[in-house]
């Protein structure tokens, strides 16, 4: 049994009045999640008892810091069922992971005339690095369309994947629609034409069980801060053979075996891609976040969010004039995006904030998606392990109040 009230006790930030007399209702986890005290304490302990640089000192503290840093990597590997901790590269966030793949694998393997397949529902992080690569190499980018319901149009997949396609990079869960895409099928389709498959799992790893071996993907990326972890740490998972062949992404300390005035010998995996002193506290915090989510059970996390999302979509669909974006609850993660004609999302968010309700308003770093829908922005409420039906009720009441102020 998932006890949401018990979970809420773990998140100190939730228990506050965000304006005088107005309790916080935090519905913006898809932008960045809050942190349970277990994560905050793990980073605190690191700074108070074991901080030193990793992989360098012979002294006790450096040993402790290195063990904590590498121990977190092993637990993160297990969390997504990676075959080997060496295939888990620490980066700043999913954005950096995608840039790493586009730069290191992309620049080595993409030539003029090649095709890169993306989808129309990608976050800017999974668009711009590929646009930069295509521009540099003279490659072509194609975009798999989404349907009116906010799902990928799989009927067109075979015509978009050709023998020219070298990369298929797609989201496992849309950050606007919440759509859970059939990632396993998409990876298979990419492999059939000899393309590599890159999975943007920034929204799925925090909310669903993810198994990179079952997916059979070549790369998978996610950010720590969306999954109860700190900012400044993210993960690139890569298939070992690919990572071995790829040139380093950034040069510096820790990513080398040996440096002479003539050149350098890169370090082995995973450190080949980790130049400079890394985000040690961040990695330890992400390790604690993975422990926290594993203890809750990712199946339970997903089930709770499905329950809340279903409740929220039903309640919001009762609001006159409100249009929901994306598929029904059963096919999506914990996201409810909507528009209300005559009431701009930015004004909705502002008025909701007066009631303590924190949501996101804007294009959510997915401008092409909004352009296709013919809107400039949307409002998005997103849910996590600590969201209650009571909070959803407050959201709906606040939306009704906003409508009244705008005479709708």
């Amino acid at each position, binding site marked *: 049994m998932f006890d949401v009230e018990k979970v809420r006790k773990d998140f100190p930030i939730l228990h506050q009045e965000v304006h005088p007399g107005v309790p916080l209702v935090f519905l913006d986890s898809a932008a960045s999640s809050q942190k349970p005290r277990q994560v905050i304490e793990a980073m605190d302990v690191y700074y108070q008892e074991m901080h030193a640089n990793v992989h360098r000192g012979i002294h006790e503290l450096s040993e402790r810091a290195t063990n904590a840093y590498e121990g977190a990597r092993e637990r993160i590997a297990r969390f997504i069922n990676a075959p080997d901790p060496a295939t888990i590269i620490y980066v700043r966030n999913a954005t950096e992971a995608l840039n790493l793949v586009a730069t290191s694998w992309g620049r080595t393997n993409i030539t003029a005339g090649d095709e890169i397949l993306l989808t129309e529902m990608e976050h800017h992080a999974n668009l711009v690095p590929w*646009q930069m690569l*295509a*521009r540099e190499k*003279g*490659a*072509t*980018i*194609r*975009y798999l369309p989404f349907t009116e319901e906010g799902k990928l149009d799989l009927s067109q997949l075979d015509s978009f994947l050709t023998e020219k396609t070298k990369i298929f990079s797609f989201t496992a869960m849309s950050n606007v629609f919440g759509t859970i895409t059939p990632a396993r099928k998409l990876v298979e389709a990419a492999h059939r034409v000899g393309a590599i498959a890159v999975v943007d799992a920034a929204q799925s790893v925090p909310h669903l069980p993810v198994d990179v071996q079952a997916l059979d993907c070549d790369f998978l990326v996610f950010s720590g801060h969306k999954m109860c972890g700190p900012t400044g740490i993210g993960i690139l998972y890569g298939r070992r053979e690919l990572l071995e062949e790829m040139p380093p992404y950034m040069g510096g300390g820790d990513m080398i075996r040996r440096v002479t005035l003539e050149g350098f010998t890169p370090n082995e995996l995973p450190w080949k891609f980790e130049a400079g002193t890394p985000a040690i506290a961040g990695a330890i915090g992400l390790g604690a976040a993975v422990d926290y989510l594993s203890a809750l059970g990712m199946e339970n996390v997903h089930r709770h969010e499905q329950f809340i999302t279903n409740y929220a979509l039903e309640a919001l669909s009762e609001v006159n004039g409100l249009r929901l974006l994306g598929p029904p609850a059963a096919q999506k993660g914990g996201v409810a995006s909507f528009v209300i004609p005559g009431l*701009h*999302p*930015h*004004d909705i968010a*502002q*008025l909701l904030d*007066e009631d303590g309700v924190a949501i996101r*308003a*804007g*294009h959510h770093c997915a*401008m092409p998606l*909004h352009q296709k829908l013919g809107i*400039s*922005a949307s409002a998005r409420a997103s849910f996590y392990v600590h969201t209650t039906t009571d909070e959803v009720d407050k959201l709906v009441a606040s939306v009704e109040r906003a409508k009244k*102020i*705008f*005479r709708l």
Partner: protein
Amino acid sequence: MSDLYREQIIDLYEHPLNYGELDPHDFSYEEDNPLCGDVIRISVRLDDEGRVAGVRWEGEGCAISQASASLLTEEIKGMTLEEVKAFPKETLLDLIGVPLSMARVKCALLSLKVLKAGAYGIPEPEEIRGEDQQ
């Protein structure tokens, strides 16, 4: 009732002033606020003495950014180009007349930013494109 959304702001949101295209014009500029997707274009025509003879704006966005564009375009009619270039942001914020958070100040001042960029003749930013985008 919300302090921010006083009657005048909502009235202007529903019934904007000086809305539409202006052709011909002496300058025209468009910019958006990437935070929230607000977008505003302002076009201005000057008379023989170099004063604002015609001004129109179009765009979409939140009530604050849209009300601000109506108030600003109303205010600059008859001003010289130099006066437009020197238009103080405090004057516009006073016209809006409600307390604004930092994020909303950006919305409120988007119209002024667009107007001044046009008045100074700053080129609009260009899109960086891939070779064969489909």
